[in-house]
């Protein structure tokens, strides 16, 4: 019974973290590809996407088996440290966005900026190198973050297949929505999703770092849910403090 609860808690956090991280990155990649396709034509955009996907698949083929060979405690410590750093960076940005110290991620603005920069370079007949490179970089860099999330979370939890499947579902779902609405997905609550992903990444990072250092967590895997609650509360308190000090500063300056 206790083992079932432990496994369920770990699975819930794993699925949530991978799904949200993959969905957020897919929104960003899709925004770039849509901007390239609409501005410069679809042929080179699709070629860029295709080559990026092949490069990502090659990377997975190389890194995946190598990660499986690493001893589990070492893998969990390395993955924990990477996730803790990455998660804290992600959560810090989300906290700053929520408290008004950083501009919120705006897919409309990114779409407009990409279209404007592509328009400046002028149209090319036939193969379009600029469109290819922009689409390739957009898909490869955002895709790399999905690959890192899947490989790190999946291998350290011994659920690589589940993590890959969840990421695939998220990518396909966002892709379908993007194609149906055929615009820049600005209605997706991306900033709230980024906050949730940050909280889950930090929770997983803390948990695996502890496991890698042979720390025995109270409640074992159930503690993952406890960490999610602790970091969510901490983020809310930090946002509140930043907002209140911002209001105080404005009142003093006015």
């Amino acid at each position: 019974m206790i083992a079932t609860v432990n496994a369920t808690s770990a699975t819930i956090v794993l699925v949530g973290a991978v799904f949200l991280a993959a969905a957020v990155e897919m929104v960003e990649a899709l925004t770039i590809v849509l901007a390239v396709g609409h501005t410069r034509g679809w042929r080179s955009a699709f070629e860029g996407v295709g080559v990026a996907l092949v490069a990502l698949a090659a990377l997975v083929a190389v890194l995946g088996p190598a990660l499986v060979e690493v001893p589990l405690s070492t893998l969990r410590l390395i993955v924990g440290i990477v996730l803790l750093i990455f998660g804290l960076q992600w959560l810090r940005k989300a906290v700053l966005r929520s408290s008004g110290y950083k501009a919120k991620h705006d897919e409309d603005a990114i779409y407009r900026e990409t279209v404007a920069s592509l328009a400046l370079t002028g149209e090319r007949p036939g193969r379009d190198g600029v469109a290819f490179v922009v689409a390739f970089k957009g898909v490869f860099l955002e895709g790399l973050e999905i690959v890192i999330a899947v490989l790190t979370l999946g291998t350290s939890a011994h659920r690589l297949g589940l993590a890959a499947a969840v990421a695939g579902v998220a990518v396909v779902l966002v892709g379908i929505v993007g194609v149906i609405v055929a615009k820049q997905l600005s209605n997706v609550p991306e900033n709230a999703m980024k906050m949730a992903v940050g909280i889950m990444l930090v929770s997983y990072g803390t948990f695996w770092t502890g496991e890698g250092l042979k720390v025995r967590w109270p409640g074992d895997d159930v503690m993952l849910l406890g960490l999610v609650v602790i970091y969510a509360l901490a983020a809310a308190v930090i946002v509140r403090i930043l907002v209140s000090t911002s209001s105080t500063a404005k009142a003093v300056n006015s």
Partner: protein
Amino acid sequence: MSAQDTSGDRPLIWRLLSGFGRFWWDFLVGDTPEITVAVIVIVGVVALLRDVAHVNALAYVTLVVLSVVTLALSAARARRKA
């Protein structure tokens, strides 16, 4: 091409490796070196508490508390720079 821009002269393998290194540097350090340094310090402190002092409860409490403190201080640093 400027005198300093010699990347086109380097072998492909060197450019790929330096690009790979740059990606990981941006990924793990980027504009928040304080987080990277803090996490390394946290890991060291927790390892000492766990393996030398043998205090398990204090080790996991320290891990969580220092991570929250790191987040708060890094956000405060960003606010000061804003």
